[in-house]
């Protein structure tokens, strides 16, 4: 689904954001990109959505090389990739319904598709009754759900999320993670950059750790701070406490380190 081959991104000819990245992500995978600020997580996400071109190397997404893709083809690439950001990026003057509909309208879907798809996805994210609200009338968690709904409404093959829980409190974050997990279970590949130890540790999914632009660890069922499997200078723990972890665990009534079970309370439904 995604294959990165020797990708390097250098900004302004001097700042190396990612260096010689090799990464393969299969269809239906759920991958966390972890690492300290400036390690290159966001750059990698931006490369995958083709917001940036790699300075060197190739990036294949859904069978197409996107690094050297002409700009005119990029919109089609974006249609197979949904994106979610820390700051939601909702339009303040449009309602929840309109924000989601916008994503379908601008790629040319007719009205009947909009009218059938938007309510479905609103239901999926648990905001069925709030379609006519404006973003400012919603909590942060709800706004992020809208943003996820918008990313998912045209059924992308891949969902890229850059710190989607970065602005949310731990309990709200759990809700967003449940949603992403549920979307992942529909077969959508999810790649999420995050700082959130608690989430990574609780979900027990594939963890790719970056440091100074290089991949230093790739665990198939990893935790946030695992043993480095590749040569690395040790990084001091960054002082983030595990308070949120315990809160998450308490909330989910799960022992630390077990995969989060989500089916029980959301079910597989109509996704």
């Amino acid at each position, binding site marked *: 689904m995604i294959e990165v081959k020797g990708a390097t991104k250098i900004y302004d000819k001097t700042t190396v954001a990612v260096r010689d990245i090799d990464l393969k992500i299969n269809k239906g995978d759920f991958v966390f990109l972890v690492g300290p600020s400036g390690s290159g997580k966001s750059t990698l996400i931006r490369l995958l*959505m083709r917001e940036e071109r790699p300075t060197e190397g190739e990036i294949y997404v859904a069978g197409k090389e996107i690094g050297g893709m002409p700009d005119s083809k*990029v*919109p089609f*690439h*974006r249609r197979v990739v949904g994106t979610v950001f820390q700051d939601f990026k909702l339009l303040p003057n449009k309602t929840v319904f309109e924000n989601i509909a916008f*994503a379908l309208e601008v790629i*040319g879907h007719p009205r009947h598709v909009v009218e059938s798809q938007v309510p479905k996805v609103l239901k999926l994210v648990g905001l069925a009754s709030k379609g006519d609200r404006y973003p400012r009338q919603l909590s942060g968690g709800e706004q992020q759900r809208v943003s996820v709904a918008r990313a998912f409404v*045209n059924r992308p093959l891949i969902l890229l999320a850059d710190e989607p829980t970065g602005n949310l409190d731990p309990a709200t974050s759990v809700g967003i993670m449940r949603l992403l997990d549920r979307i992942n279970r529909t077969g959508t590949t999810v790649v999420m950059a995050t700082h959130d130890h608690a989430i990574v540790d609780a979900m027990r999914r594939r963890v790719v750790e970056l440091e100074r632009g290089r991949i230093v660890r790739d665990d198939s069922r990893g935790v946030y701070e695992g043993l480095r499997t590749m040569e690395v200078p040790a990084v001091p723990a960054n002082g983030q406490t595990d308070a949120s972890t315990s809160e998450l665990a308490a909330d989910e009534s799960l022992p630390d380190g077990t995969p989060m079970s989500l089916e029980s309370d959301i079910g597989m439904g109509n996704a």
Partner: protein
Amino acid sequence: MRAEYLIGEAAANLRRNLLLAIGAVLAVFISLLMTYAALIVGEITRTTTLQWQEGVTIIGYLHEADLADHTAVIEKAESWPEVETATYFSKAQAYEEFKELFANRDRWIELVEPAKIPASVRIVLADTEAHRAVVDQLAKEPTVRKVVSPEDNLNDVLTVSKFLNFGAILLGATLGVSALVLIANTVRMAIYARREEIGIMKLVGASNWFVRTPFLLEGLIEGLLGAGLAVAVGWVGYQWLLGSFDIGVIETDLPTSFLLSRGMLVLLFGGVVGVLGSAVGLRRWLKES
């Protein structure tokens, strides 16, 4: 729904930036009004000149002399290759013409003695370009007292009108550039006002043309509005001048087809300026994916 959407967006942009849009429309209007006026004046000059040039006549007034001397000059003039015809115009004929020309000015006719009006040779040129040479050559003839030619006056008119035309076109072009810049600026402002929306459109895979079209339409509408205004004002202004002044010898009555075809040209030009202006404004965005 798409066409509806695109036009709606363009209209919304215009409304949001009304003051700037008005400025851009006015700049296009003034620039194209100058151009349209220059086209009209140019055509008036051209048709008038044509009328005068048709069978342009050089008149050589002759000294008092024998008929034989006069005939010699005429035969000589007729032998020049640039000359089509050289005809003798006797004192009597000249007096008749004088009376005809000033038929309503009896006092002038009373005052003029037929004998005082000189005989002349009238030359119709085969090659109007050679006008100057023929005038010079004719003046050298001893029997010829004075050579006059309407072209002398014509040249003055032509010089002045060329100068005016050039000035109008130059001014029109300068204003055209400023109109383009103003349109580029309004489009840039509109983009800036909607940058979040555009960012999201690109994020979810809206095609580049889908993003650009409303802005190009905005420029097109501004350009066409300005041009339409220019044509309307130019046309009405021309009709009004036509009704108000009778400039005698000047052929001012242009065919409607001319006004219409040049009006179309001006409209087209306005549209092009508008689209070009918004393309300039969009340039940064056209490059980005």
